[in-house]
């Protein structure tokens, strides 16, 4: 097993990138991702990481340069957040459309305006349709482990899609956590050198990124969609092999005291830690409450979510992002779609909390459960409710 140390989670992500023997990094600094890229720059400067670090002049160029490096067969990494991710938006669709297995870490941060450097999930929730594999970490160990897994998933010949590992900005990226780093030897044995499936090579010239007329566009999109859907099995495989090699297990959906729960809290990311404490307290008080944390976001784990949540009386979904004037939180609206085909469905109440770095407290979870009990009794009163807003 690896050495157990206390390390800032951002730096743990950089460690994973180093151990993955990344060939190229093209990144632009933005709070709260900066520690990740600074650490990588230092690693390259000290010769610890044998990679070309392209100090691009914007996030759009970062993703563009990543397309360039990945297209010639380099294992490629970048990181960003918030405005940077938004600036990359056009490129994100292109990277997946061109089937380039880029790995990106996002330190989830609120979007302007007003300007916020603090954490929430609005940046990545605005990018659900980009066709990338997407997962969320809760702890530093997960951040490290899942980053390694992302390379193996992305580069699998059955997938060949870019992949995102999300960590909550500040709440996860900037905390020091105890975690186990693995050795280079062990990682080398588990994660082989990247062998690209398609590559720009004068010996075998290819034309990449052509014009797709209406006669073919749908078929290419279908191909891409099937690759993302099919990546589900690859994700499970990779997590299984990770557990075999390194001893830590990961599933698309994590349930906590949810089997016999009447009200289940569903959320994503680091606030699960607080939620767990709230669940334990409420259980002591006799409430049948549980927690389900979604780890794999794309491809969406439909079956696992139905299994984990279908039997509850109510699900209280806590979103750290909002679709203004729409169906509320992204996690909630996707869950509703997921549960819709069931004959017997739980009430799904959507709560928005933790925007722009606002703390989500144990009291907030009490409020959320209480509100959900009301909905169970008297029915829905709102499409979604914002928690903790001063009114």
């Amino acid at each position, binding site marked *: 097993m690896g050495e157990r140390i206390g390390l800032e989670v951002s730096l743990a992500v950089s460690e994973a990138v180093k151990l993955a023997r990344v060939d190229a990094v093209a990144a632009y600094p933005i709070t709260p991702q900066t520690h990740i890229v600074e650490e990588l720059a230092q690693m390259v400067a000290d010769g610890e990481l044998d990679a070309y670090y392209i100090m691009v002049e914007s996030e759009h160029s970062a993703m563009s340069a990543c397309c360039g490096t990945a297209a010639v067969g380099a294992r490629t990494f970048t990181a960003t957040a918030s405005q940077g991710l938004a600036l990359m938006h056009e490129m994100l669709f292109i990277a997946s459309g061109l089937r380039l297995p880029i790995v990106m870490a996002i330190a989830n941060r609120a979007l302007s305006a007003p300007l916020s450097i603090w954490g929430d999930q609005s940046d990545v929730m605005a990018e659900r349709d980009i066709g990338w594999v997407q997962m969320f970490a809760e702890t530093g160990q997960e951040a490290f482990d899942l980053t390694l897994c992302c390379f193996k998933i992305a580069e699998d010949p059955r997938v060949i899609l870019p992949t995102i590992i999300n960590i909550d900005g500040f709440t996860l990226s900037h905390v020091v956590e105890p975690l186990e780093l693995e050795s280079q030897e062990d990682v080398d044995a588990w994660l082989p050198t990247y062998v690209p499936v398609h590559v720009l*090579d004068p010996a075998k010239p290819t034309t990449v990124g052509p*014009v797709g*007329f209406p006669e073919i566009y749908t078929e290419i999109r279908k191909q891409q969609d099937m690759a993302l859907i099919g990546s589900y099995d690859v994700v499970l495989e990779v997590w299984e092999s990770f557990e075999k090699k390194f001893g830590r297990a990961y599933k698309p959906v994590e349930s906590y005291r949810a089997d016999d729960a009447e009200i289940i809290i569903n959320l994503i990311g680091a606030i699960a830690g607080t939620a767990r404490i709230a669940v334990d307290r409420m259980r002591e008080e006799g409430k049948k409450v549980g927690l389900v944390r979604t780890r794999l976001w794309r491809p969406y784990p439909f079956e696992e979510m139905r299994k984990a949540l279908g039997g509850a009386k109510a699900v209280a979904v806590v979103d750290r992002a909002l679709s203004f004037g729409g169906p509320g939180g992204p996690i909630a609206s996707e869950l509703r779609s997921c549960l819709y085909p069931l004959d017997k469905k739980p009430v799904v109440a959507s709560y928005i909390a933790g925007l722009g770095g606002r703390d989500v407290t144990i009291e907030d979870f009490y409020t959320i459960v209480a509100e959900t009990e009301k909905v169970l009794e008297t029915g829905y009163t709102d499409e979604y409710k914002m928690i903790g807003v001063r009114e």
Partner: protein
Amino acid sequence: MAEKSTDFIPRLLPPRELFAEGHRGCQGCGEALALRQVIKVAGPNTIVCSATGCMEIISSPYPETAWRIPWIHVAFENAAAVASGVEAGIKVLQKKGRYPEGKINVIAIGGDGGTADIGLQALSGALERRHNFTYVCTDNEAYMNTGIQRSSSTPWGASTTTSPSGKESIGQNVPKKNLPKIVAAHDIPYLATACPSYPLDLMNKTRKALEVEGPTYLHVLSPCPTGWRHPIDMAVEMGRLAVETGVFPLYEIVNGRLKLDMVMEKREPVIDYLKPQGRFRHLKPEQIEEIQKVVDEYYESLVYRAECDAKAPEANADEW
């Protein structure tokens, strides 16, 4: 060096066509001609990163490709950023023994829109970072592919669909952005202006640009019969007139020193260049005079600059 057919023998040039026939460019397209000449020189050990635009659209309608070398199109504004990645990726992979050895030319191609406007940031970044690549701007002076809309490279007085001439308008009412000057401000080792009407000149400059270590830039005037509204057999003639009137001077800047390729003491009057083009048809005599004045001033300033640069102390002007 105004080439005459007796001065050089094209049939001694490499016959291989790496930009193949069958592309969907307009009849008589000056930009396709320029690209054909550039790619001919670049050779098979080349990777092209193309911006969205005329050349990209006409050369890559799935399943047809005019490219016989590796080619990637990503988006409109990032040819230089993609080329940065390709160059960096090859460098690191060759070092690690995971990519075939040998020199690979990395060429980024963008039109005037994709370079001077939306692509300026990526170009500047790539030049500043000193990637070893060549940026070729094929300048047809508007967003031709989407229907002849103006760009910052559209010359003063030209009528385009978004800067049309009319009762209250002369058309483009600001001067053409001087892109080579902006590129030169990045202090790169080599940049040049070129025109496919002077193929040997263009191809020699391409060769130099590819051989020089570091970022290099070619600004290639690309006459467009569709957008400039001249007869389809006149693209080469228009390019020649652009050069002979001084509207598009041919020069190189080698390590910061400017060398004029043709020092013309007497230039043809600009009206010879403007007249055959429908986009200038609305211009009045006093406006043409204004253009002549500006062209004269700029050309003379280049002549003066070239003389000064030739005399500069550490002048290595003979290097090439």
